[in-house]
């Protein structure tokens, strides 16, 4: 699962395009719907935007495995154990796929995956806001699959025709798998919704807890909210199509009827569909909190990063061992 988090305060490299001819040719190609490949010429801000987007997407898949992983050993039936194992394994696979794409883009800068991991641990590389949140009950394992992955499908589908070929192809595969994840999540949710009082209560409580994070998922509506936004450059370069708010509206339209049909409520008494404006009116989440969360000051940011840090430090000897001359096998 994934999304591109708008980091309001990130520094963008000032960029001046010198080679107008190449730039025009590049723009003509993407306007014509052609795909850009790793070895093709590309404007520096395009490369930068892609590195930022894809490395964050990749690292979010990997960090995203951690909240769900909390429930893998605890899954309540054998069938659920198999389902959630397969699901989280897919997410790690997505992370790997995406980091490979990011690695190719970073090559001209001499940066590697090792650098990305270090950037993550020292706070320079952000991961998605939803993965800073706690998973307190089994219902959260369902909620992540159902609504978080459901939101991810929306934002990824938005990039299925992205101008950068390697990313676009990775997304095709990722989206196909995400559909299964959403079904897996929905299946957990359905069992709880049809279950006893305790099960229904942990389900509602989970939705209440995840609601603000789900609204934040798509990022702020405009740069005014958080200071800056990468939406414009992403749209200009045909990496994505819709805006953050369009995606959020589509998400609400798709999922709110399902939420209500399960007898669940949304922790926002003002939420309603305005027929005249043709959009959902909802209480804005706390965007100041959003900024804090993606700066690794969310409820579980420190713990999750600590897990990665321990894994990184603890396995140093293995990496060193692998760096030796290969053995004949």
């Amino acid at each position, binding site marked *: 699962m994934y999304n591109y988090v708008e980091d309001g305060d990130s520094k963008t490299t000032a960029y001046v395009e010198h080679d107008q001819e190449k730039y025009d040719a590049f723009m003509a190609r993407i306007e014509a719907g052609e795909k850009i490949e790793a070895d093709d010429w590309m404007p520096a801000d395009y490369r930068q935007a892609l590195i930022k987007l894809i490395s964050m997407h990749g690292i979010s898949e*990997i960090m995203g*495995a*951690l909240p769900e*992983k*909390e*429930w*893998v*050993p*605890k*899954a*309540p*039936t*054998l*069938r*659920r*154990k*198999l389902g959630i*194992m*397969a699901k*989280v*394994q897919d997410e*790690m*696979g997505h*992370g*790997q796929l995406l*980091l490979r794409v990011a690695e190719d883009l970073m090559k001209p800068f001499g940066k590697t*995956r090792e650098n990305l991991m270090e950037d993550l641990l020292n706070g320079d590389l952000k991961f998605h806001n939803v993965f800073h949140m706690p998973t307190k009950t*089994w219902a959260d394992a369902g909620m992540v699959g159902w609504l978080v992955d459901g939101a991810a499908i929306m934002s990824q589908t938005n990039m299925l025709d992205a101008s950068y070929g390697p990313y676009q192809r990775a997304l095709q595969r990722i989206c196909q798998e995400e559909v299964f994840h959403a079904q897996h999540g929905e299946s*957990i949710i359905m*069992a709880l919704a*049809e*279950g*006893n009082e*305790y*099960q229904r209560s942990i389900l509602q409580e989970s939705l209440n807890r995840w609601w603000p994070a789900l609204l934040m998922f798509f990022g702020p509506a405009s740069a005014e909210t958080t200071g800056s936004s990468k939406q414009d450059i992403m749209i200009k370069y045909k990496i994505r199509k819709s805006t953050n708010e369009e995606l959020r509206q589509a998400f609400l339209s798709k999922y709110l009827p399902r939420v209500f049909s399960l007898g669940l409520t949304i922790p926002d008494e003002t939420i309603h569909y305005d027929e005249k404006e043709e959009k959902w009116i909802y209480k804005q989440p706390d965007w100041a909190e959003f900024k804090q969360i993606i700066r690794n000051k969310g409820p579980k940011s420190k*713990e999750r990063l*600590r*897990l990665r840090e*321990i*894994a990184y430090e*603890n*396995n140093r*000897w*293995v*990496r*060193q*061992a*692998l760096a*030796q001359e*290969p*053995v004949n*096998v």
Partner: protein
Amino acid sequence: MERGEEKMSNIIETPEQAKQDATYYQALRELLLQLADDDLLISFRGSEWLGLAPHIEEDVAYSSITQNTMGHAVMYYNLLEELGEGRADILAHDRQPDERRNGCYLEKRNGEGMYLEEPYYDWALAVVRNYFYETCKKIKLEAIANSSYQPLAHVARKVLMEHPYHLAHWKLWMKQLQSSTDEAKKRMQTRIDEAWVEFADVLELGNLATDMRKHRLVTISEEEIKDKWLDEVKTILVDLPEGPVGKKYGSGRNGEHTDDLKQALDILAEVYNSDKAAAW
């Protein structure tokens, strides 16, 4: 598989047939519990590693193996369910430690800490444990592929199709880490020596081993399993520990276990235990 006339009488096709001979049934039940519990426990320990492996590719590979292994456990529990031993989920989640039949070494914690907090897991333990286990599993599966109990033979043949990849994976890690840095060699040897005094009950078939052999549930004796296993690991271990393989913590096949099993079961069944009557 031999299907000579003499052998035909030994072929058991259904749970109903299996129940007609009490000693056959008991031995079958015992064998299935051992196979199921072994896979459940090693898969559980594997699932704790998720997200913490040495690199991302390994996380993908190890979680795939772990998931397959859980799938194997499910197939054995299903066979028990078909025999009328109760629902597979109850068998997996709701049996006391002294009813569990897995080898003690498989329940061992992955290292210091808990998977949610400060998991100082030891990759050398993961590699040695999985390599030793998968090597043993291969020998047993091959002997079970010709089992008199047809539903079990069928499962064993299915599992054998996935198994070579698992074994090859851990064998490669064994070779690489044993022939690398001094630190890696030392860490590996420590875990190999440790396994050497703990692993024996994994190789064994428990109190009903003779009946299992007699009824051709397995087509190999306990001694042959041990010998074959030893021959195989000798080809991989750079420094073979001295002495016979031991079972320091007793025999899991008889329900003897360490506190680590209790710790595993508490986590494994945490949600299940929160409401046993609920449909999850």
